[in-house]
């Protein structure tokens, strides 16, 4: 899903304004850093997770708010000047349906119709919201034509700063990086409405916060991302950026135990084995929907066989100018989370 925003960012011309560069060692401050960083080129509030319905059925869900800063003439006094563009996307994975349902909103910031706050998480995009209350809970509500939900996410663990205290390398150059922190193991409660019928849902979610001006290395054609809430309270984050040959341009991630013991993973600590391929009838793309990942954790290899909630969690957003990708709920023995696979239908264009 991150790919959607990047596709949007790619629409921006080369003659971009000077965006701040992501540098290591910048200390994070909360709740300030829960809010927007509007000078950076891109930013997201990215929630994935699992819902349990009153009948005990498991569903995957994802809701994301993106912010991007297109190049504008700062002298333009118009209230419509497109200084910030907000985009939001939500998807629901229901095995009973066998495919994704999704919905989105997009607007240029302004007029109170599309706004972010620089003080804390407080985003308005038409009728969609994501707001952090002072007690640390995050409320989000979205409405689409096929489904709507209102969720409250309650943190059970402190912020997990990825990479080097939140400086997360994404490529060989030091500037190929983002500021990145995660809130894993979010307790979830709320209401899911489908076909006009609201039901109470519970579950567990994961929030990724990332902002950057230069996310993707020019050699990259796609990436794989995995975030797992383990039953023992630990959290595993993995990502791999691939080149045209399928080799890793960069890889990384982190592991944090329930007690807060954190391990940052270097590129050499992460390996993906594709495993079974699922071929999409709709797009013709083949995805490694059940890969096996191996990470070196404190000198010991940890191998996880990933199993998707169901195979067809592909999303084709070409109609709106976006890419084709796979993003879905997955399980591993002793944990569950979300897997994102991009650049398999055609290479990401730079």
């Amino acid at each position, binding site marked *: 899903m991150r790919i959607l925003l990047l596709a949007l960012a*790619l*629409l*921006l*011309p080369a003659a971009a304004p000077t965006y701040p560069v992501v540098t290591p060692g910048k200390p994070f401050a909360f709740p300030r850093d829960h809010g927007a960083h509007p000078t950076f080129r891109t930013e997201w509030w990215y929630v994935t997770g699992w819902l349990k319905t009153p009948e005990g059925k498991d569903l995957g869900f994802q809701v994301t708010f993106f912010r991007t800063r*297109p*190049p*504008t*003439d700062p002298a*333009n*006094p*118009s*209230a*419509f*000047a*497109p200084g910030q*563009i907000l985009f939001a996307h939500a998807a629901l994975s229901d095995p009973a349906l066998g495919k994704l349902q999704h919905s989105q909103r*997009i*607007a*240029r910031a302004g*007029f*109170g*119709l599309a706004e972010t706050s620089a003080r804390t998480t407080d985003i308005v995009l*038409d009728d969609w919201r994501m707001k952090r209350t002072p007690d640390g809970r995050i409320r989000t509500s979205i409405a689409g034509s096929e489904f709507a939900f209102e969720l409250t996410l309650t943190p059970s663990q402190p912020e997990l700063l990825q990479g080097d205290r939140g400086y997360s390398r994404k490529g060989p150059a030091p500037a190929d990086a983002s500021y990145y922190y995660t809130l894993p193991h979010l307790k979830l409660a709320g209401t899911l409405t489908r076909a006009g019928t609201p039901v109470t849902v519970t579950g567990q979610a994961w929030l990724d916060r990332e902002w950057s001006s230069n996310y993707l290395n020019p050699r990259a054609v796609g990436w794989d991302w995995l975030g797992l809430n383990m039953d023992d309270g630990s959290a595993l984050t993995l990502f791999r950026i691939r080149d045209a040959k399928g080799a890793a341009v960069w890889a990384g991630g982190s592991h944090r135990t329930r007690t807060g013991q954190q391990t940052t993973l270097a590129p050499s600590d992460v390996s993906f084995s594709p495993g079974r391929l699922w071929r999409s009838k709709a797009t013709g793309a083949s995805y490694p929907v059940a890969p096996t990942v191996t990470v070196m954790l404190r000198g010991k290899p940890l191998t996880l066989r990933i199993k998707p909630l169901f195979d067809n969690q592909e999303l084709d957003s070409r109609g709106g100018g976006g890419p084709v990708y796979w993003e879905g709920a997955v399980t591993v023995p002793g944990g569950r989370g979300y897997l994102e696979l991009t650049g398999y239908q055609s290479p990401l264009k730079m």
Partner: protein
Amino acid sequence: MTAAWQPPPTTAARWMVIGEWRAHPARLVIGALAIAVGVALGFAVHLVNQTALASFDRAVRTVNGAADLQIRAATPAGFAESLYPRIARTPGVAAASPVVEIVAFASASTTGTANPAPMTLLGLDVLRAAAVTPSLIGLPPDRSSPFDPDAIFLSRAALTAAKKNLGDRITLTAANTSRSFTIAGILANTGNDQAIAVIDIADAQWRFAQLGKLQRIDIRLAQGMNRAAAMAAINARLPADARLVSPENAQASSDSLSRAYRVNLEMLAMVALLTGGFLVYSAQSLSVARRRPQFALLRVLGLRPGALTVQIVLEGAIVGLIGAGLGIAIGYGLADLAVTLLGGDLGGGLLGRGEVHLDFSAPAALVFAMIGIAVAIASSLVPALEAARAKPAIALKNAGDTTDPRHRPAGWPGLVLLGLGGLAALGPPIAELPLLGYAAMALLLAGGVAAMPFLARALLAPLQNLSLPAPLDLALKRLWGAPQQAAVALCGIVASTSLMVAMAVMVSSFRGSVDDWLVQILPSDVYLHIEGAETAGLDPTAQARLAATPGVAKIRFLRQIPLRLAADRAPVILTGQPDPAASIPLIGRTIPVPAGEVAAYISEPMVWLYNLKPGDRMNLPLGGKSRPVFIAGVWRDYARQFGAITLADRDFTALTGDRTRSEAAIDTAPGTDPAKLITALRQRLGPVIGAQAMFAEPRQMRAVALSIFDRSFAITYALEAIAIVIGLVGVAATFSAQTLARTREFGMLRHIGVRRGQIMTMLAAEGALLGIIGVIAGLALGVLMSQVLIHVVNPQSFHWTMDTRIPWPLFAGLAAALTAAAAGTAALAGRRAVSADAIRAVREDW
């Protein structure tokens, strides 16, 4: 009676009909032609108007995208942009797309043409427009930024008008600012008609002096939403200077633009068809009269009366069918020609830029063909019934012409119809159309024709006692003795003459009134108009600069802006000008303005369209508020059919806050050469606004206005000419039929020693007498009908009045031409009858 309505035996009917037409093909041709002309005119006018309307509608829809609803600013100044979030949050609104809409010019310097190419410049938020009006979004082929301030997207028409290609630079001028862009893409879904340019809304606001303003908000309603409730909710949030417009409103207002004009022309075409019907009637009744013994024989041999009626009507229907088919083909050709030569609105000047495509409409063709056939059938019905009623035994022995000079034709049916016509003329418009006025015209026409036998007798009575040479006396006696037959010959000529006279009087009255009006409203020596000055015109500095030009004795600045008073009506023109009471052609009384109130002068159409009169107060949506004004007077305006309001310039500035002006009237100092003064003025305007400036002298403006007038009435002139031709053809056909029917009479006259020349003289005299009676009746009826046109039809459809002017020279020429033509055709037809074998003629039974 009911059992009698049976189809005639097919074979017998076919033999009879084919035999008749083989014997008299001209009769078939003339009848069919008469119907064809009417159908052709009706269909052509309809096609052209439908095409014009469709392209106008397409134009409106193109610029509007496909929004469910639209909020439009009352004036080009727009409304405050703060309305946008309020509308976006209104329940029921799924998406709201803010729009800046201004008129811009692709500058002459970049197009390389003398005239700047005007286009509608839209400033859009693509992200919002995507959900409401996707057709207005240009997709850049190279995926460049949708927010790129340098990018502009043009419709194909705009690209053509500016003579540009994709990737070229283009300079647009609006609001006294010029700015250049790169053409980044084409608006592929806007059709080829409209010149539209799209840029980002923020840049449009900033670069073209529209900061904080919008001209439009396009709205998409939530699915399943109660539309009326949503519209009510939106309306409740609107400021005074914005209007909620639905596509139906827009349709209604574009329809109202051409409706009156279109309906007028279609009615005229119907009238032409009616004339054709009279011609068929006269041809059919003569043909039936001539064949009375033949029909009698068929009756004796066993043809049932109902079957005979059906057979004769069928004959008329076939004439109608042939005529209608021909008429549809001719009509399409005519429409094609008219569109090519005159443009989509027949020169009416209602359509702006854009081209017109003529579409053949099968349902319309069918309707007009059916009307043509129906007219032919109706025209045959009277003679058919008459033939079936005739006693076969008597009719068999009697060869045609069974007239009894003692029989006095009744005058009352005609008088009743004329009276009904007069009553109908007093009626109000129906659905804003002068339908009763047209009914009045039709009734007057019918009344006039019905009164013809009576009138012919009355007119000829004084001549009865004169001692005249034998041929003249015979002619007179015949017409006096057979007024019904004379009337049959006359109805075509009276119908066409009266219609033509009515149109001629109306057009000449209109033209004369327009000419007078132009003299009144153009008292100065030089006029300046800034094209596309809706967004900005001449600011006070520029005004002072122009006023100080040497050679300017006096200069008056005016500001004109369109003002949308109602969602379903075309905008009116609001003018601010110095001392309006002294410079506009006021009609009727003016009312003193109460202290502290603002005087407004409304044009004549406003009186009709908005039901206003002097002494009333109305609210003008200006500057975000409703501004009450006092209507001090009404003035005559032939230029703006949809209404105009004039304020004193001080009041205009006070109400709108707009100090710029868009026109100027200049009195030159004695001895100043207007051409040199124009050059000097143009220099002082500067290059940006100079490109939009148009100078004219009253003489040119009058010439242009009158030529536009003549062009828009070209179609009516054509209709008039055709009506005359129909009339003459009718006279010729009738005479030739009547003279042929009287072959025996001529044979008898020749037997008893009347010379061939004398018979010719007699026939010519009959023709001339008929012509004179026809012209007198036609003129009288036509002048009567013209008064309906002038005092009922025009005020009700165009909302303006005029003073009657009779085109005497035209009348004199018409009278002479028609009389001569009637006499000539009569004599010509007589030649054939007289040259026939006289002996055989006497022996012949029919």
